[in-house]
């Protein structure tokens, strides 16, 4: 059985996603021992604008994630965001799972400062959100349908946005994935997920690298006091600028 990782990356005005993906590919090779292909996004697709609190409005080239199924040359594929930091071999576990498709159902703030309740659901009907940050799929009818369904949702985004009463105008892979999983699973909300939560770091916190797989997060806690924690685990760095600086220092 062949296994590999795909990272979708295309630079915008503020963020060097390709450098981020190359750095991540080295981490993946080191910890998971699998090859990585970096997919530079399709320039023919229309772009979104998305706001990030650390870098402001940027062009959001992130519309072709659903092509992962056709682009992957492997039997089993890990699809990762370029800003997902692989600092351990934790993801090996899901590469061994007897499942066609896995993603995170829940994300949480590593510092405990932010409640992710609002981010773990979307739309006025509070639909459960599945995070497209880390996806694992194996070649199967089920996985193929999920990706085809995501494509259908992207191509008809205004319809699905209205149907799910989603106030977010910007297309998001997370929302498309969540809707697709619902449709493919017969609207049962019954889908196997990655059996742990997605550790996330929001942009207002300061991320620095201590050494190769150790990171320090400085933050102001809910009582307005400066605190810090050290991370030696995988996490989703939502602050692209700080991660970009770490990547630049490692290049």
């Amino acid at each position, binding site marked *: 059985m062949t296994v590999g990782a795909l990272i979708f990356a295309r630079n915008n005005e503020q963020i060097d996603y390709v450098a981020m993906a190359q750095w991540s590919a080295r981490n993946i090779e080191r910890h998971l021992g699998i090859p990585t292909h970096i997919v530079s996004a399709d320039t023919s697709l229309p772009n979104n604008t998305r706001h990030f609190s650390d870098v402001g409005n940027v062009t959001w080239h992130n519309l072709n994630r659903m092509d992962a199924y056709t682009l992957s040359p492997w039997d089993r594929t890990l699809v990762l965001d370029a800003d997902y930091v692989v600092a351990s071999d934790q993801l090996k576990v899901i590469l061994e799972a*007897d499942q066609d498709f896995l993603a995170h159902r829940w994300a949480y703030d590593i510092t405990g400062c932010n409640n992710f309740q609002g981010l773990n659901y979307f739309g006025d009907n509070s639909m459960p959100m599945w995070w497209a940050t880390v996806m694992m799929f194996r070649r199967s009818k089920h996985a193929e349908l999920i990706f085809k369904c995501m494509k259908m949702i992207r191509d008809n985004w205004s319809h699905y946005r209205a149907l799910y009463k989603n106030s977010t105008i910007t297309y998001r892979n997370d929302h498309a994935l969540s809707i697709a999983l619902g449709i493919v699973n017969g609207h049962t909300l019954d889908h196997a997920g990655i059996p742990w*939560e997605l550790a996330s770091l929001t942009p207002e916190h300061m991320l620095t690298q201590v050494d190769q797989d150790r990171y320090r997060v400085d933050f102001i806690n809910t009582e307005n006091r400066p605190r810090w924690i050290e991370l030696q685990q995988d996490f989703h760095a939502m602050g692209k600028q700080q991660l970009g600086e770490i990547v630049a220092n490692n290049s």
Partner: protein
Amino acid sequence: MDTENLIAHARTRFDHAAARRTLKEKYQAKFIFAHAGGMWQAGPELLTTLKCCTGTVVILDLYETPVQVNTEEFYEQVLQRWQEQLNAWLVEYEALNKNR
């Protein structure tokens, strides 16, 4: 009542509880592993289940899929994973207490 002292103490406890929760999230993930085509969480519940049985049995994994396992061999693996990760957790927990 020295309310200033009480507030300071409560704040410290809050921070400490948040750090402990973060550590717990990290190790909850590390307890999970694959075996015999199933996905498992090492811990007392699984160990007790395995201790109740002998030879080859069928038990439900995290995805509620029935999986056939050899109890003796699997018990050793679960115990090893559980204690390895708990030891690492203890080291980090003690460092946390020291820092604060």
